[in-house]
């Protein structure tokens, strides 16, 4: 059996009311050379039974009994995929007609592109449209295209802006930069895109490719509950700590040049220092978190003689300046009751 051009993967969990529509939106695509890998993550609402009712020779379905999280299931699906490209759909979203053919053309004609994304329309549980203007983050996916360095800058200061269920990616990239990290619940995709754009160009279509379901409460992971909002910040911190790992000097200059103290970044040591000092640049949100991470990194750099010499002589940062910065943020005091 020859490998299909595309592997469409769908991790499914407790979306009995929506999964059939999601599946039909894939099976009715005008580009037909794909396998459709579906895995149920131990749903308790009969999602697996609904999936079995939809028949198509391209479907390969696995039902797991135990719920282990979207990350584990997605990883399983990626490892099973045989296509050259992988496209992902959530079990409550709907692809618009022509989505696959449009993206296959893009990836095939631009060998430098690692992955492509698109904009969305929002729908509610009843498939009614939700205007973007009615939501705080309604326009979050409507971003202009830019260079890898500038994408990193966007991610660093503003957070995620790529819509996971619009993605089509070259399958080999997962082997190179790793798959979604299941330790993260809110931001595994964001973490993935950062690793992706460190090596590959990406492109976002300027038109909607999918209908993105917004459900109230915690029914899907994006649900805007206080618990999730807290976890987003904590996971963002884990990501920010590793953000610049593997970012070369050229990308650093290209994305953040105007914010660097020494714009030429003459050595790797300078690059490491500049990466830490970017955590002290004015951030539009979570300023405190950035600085806490920055102070921890600066503390360690000051322990290392070559970095300490550079910091003192070229950046004017010595123990005294470090101590001053340490007194400027007030994050860890117990919060007033």
């Amino acid at each position, binding site marked *: 059996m020859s490998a299909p051009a595309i592997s469409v993967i769908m991790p499914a969990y407790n979306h009995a009311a929506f999964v059939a529509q999601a599946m039909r939106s894939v099976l009715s695509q005008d580009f037909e050379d794909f396998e459709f890998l579906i895995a149920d993550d131990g749903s308790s609402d009969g999602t697996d039974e609904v999936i079995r009712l939809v028949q198509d020779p391209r479907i390969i379905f696995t039902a797991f009994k135990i719920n282990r999280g979207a990350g584990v299931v997605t990883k399983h699906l990626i490892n099973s995929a045989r296509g050259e490209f992988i496209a992902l759909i959530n079990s409550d979203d709907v692809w618009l007609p022509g989505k696959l053919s449009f993206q296959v053309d893009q990836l095939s004609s631009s060998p430098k592109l690692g992955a492509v994304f698109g904009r969305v329309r929002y729908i509610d549980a009843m498939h009614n449209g939700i205007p973007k203007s009615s939501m705080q983050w309604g326009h979050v996916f409507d971003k202009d295209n830019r260079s890898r360095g500038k994408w990193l800058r966007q991610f660093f200061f503003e957070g995620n802006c790529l819509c996971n269920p619009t993605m089509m990616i070259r399958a080999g990239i997962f082997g190179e930069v790793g798959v979604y990290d299941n*330790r993260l619940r809110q931001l595994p995709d964001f973490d993935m895109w950062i690793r992706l754009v460190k090596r590959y160009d990406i492109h976002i279509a300027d038109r909607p490719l999918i209908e993105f379901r917004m459900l109230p409460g915690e029914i899907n992971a994006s649900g805007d509950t206080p618990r999730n909002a*807290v976890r987003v910040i*904590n996971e963002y*911190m884990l990501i920010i*700590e590793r953000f610049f790992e593997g970012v070369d000097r050229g990308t650093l200059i290209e994305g953040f040049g105007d914010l660097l103290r020494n714009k030429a970044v003459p050595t790797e040591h300078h690059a490491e220092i500049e990466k830490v000092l970017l955590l002290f640049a004015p951030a539009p949100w979570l300023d405190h978190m950035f600085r806490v991470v920055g102070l921890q990194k600066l503390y360690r750099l000051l322990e290392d003689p070559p970095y300490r010499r550079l910091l003192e002589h070229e950046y004017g940062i010595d*123990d005294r300046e470090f101590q001053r910065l340490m*007194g*400027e943020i007030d994050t*860890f005091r117990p*919060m007033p009751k």
Partner: protein
Amino acid sequence: MTSPRVSVIMPSFNHGKFIADAIESVLRQDFEDFELLIEDDGSTDNTRATLGAIADPRLNIILNDKNRGAGIVTNSLIGRARGDYIALINSDDMWTATKLQRQVAFMDRNVDVAAAFSRAEFVDAKGMPIKATRLSFGRIFDQENRSQGRWLRHFFFNGNCLCNPSFLARRTAVLRTGGFDNRLRQLPDLDFWVRMAKRERFHVDYEPLVRFRVARGMNVSSDTPANAARALMEHALIAETFFEGVSTELLQDGFADLMRIPRPPTLLHSKIEQALLYFAAPPNSPYRRMLAAAGYRKLFNLLSSSETRQLLESDYSFDDHAFHELGVIGELFQS
């Protein structure tokens, strides 16, 4: 020239109002076999003039033009010390007349103890006693003696509680511990005690042997918002590497009742137990949120190595799901 028994070291900075009293309290000690090494950290007040006016054969003064931080000056003084014991005093504190005599006698008798501390009474800018009950930290130095592990536990959850200018220790033990970390401003002493307690035994005298200066805005302990914020951040830095070099025995000694597996069978188990202790702070600990933030990061890393991930899952029932739950236990970073 024979070495003195005790090297008294005094880092000094802009305490022109107090330093003469501090020096006098040393020179008038009942115990006389010491050298007094003073190093000024680039004071800009009348400190240097005051130092020039005091004469005593046991006195040895170094003046620096540039202010570089107490850590650098203290380390320089330690490097010059020749005595069997090193005793530290700040340029604004005072000792009671029996301080050295009591501590030297104790240390001579108890060779297994490496460092001696004491309680303190508090005095104001004029040297007048302040009642402990009038200070929020008035009882902080009134500590019972503890095992090494229990000291570590106290430092971890409750922070510093040893009186810096009461410190007298064997010079060899001070050198083994390493220097004071000049990156830290509020808690270089806590950082030093933590490293020292990992290898050495402490003793706290119940007698107040120090007259500890509390003068608003006049020293590093002053209760300003910047100092309070910095102290918490510094505790976070110290907490980050807190268990480095802590043996399983020491871990059990200090924390067994808080551990899931009180007798960790392997070093990897000990490592996991250490990470979980960041979530075990008592409700009255001021560091609960900060420790939890550090523990959250440590568990994230332990889940990335397949060895520790397997142990976490099999012996602790801790998996990615459990980690996700930790992410919601409270905002680790307020804005």
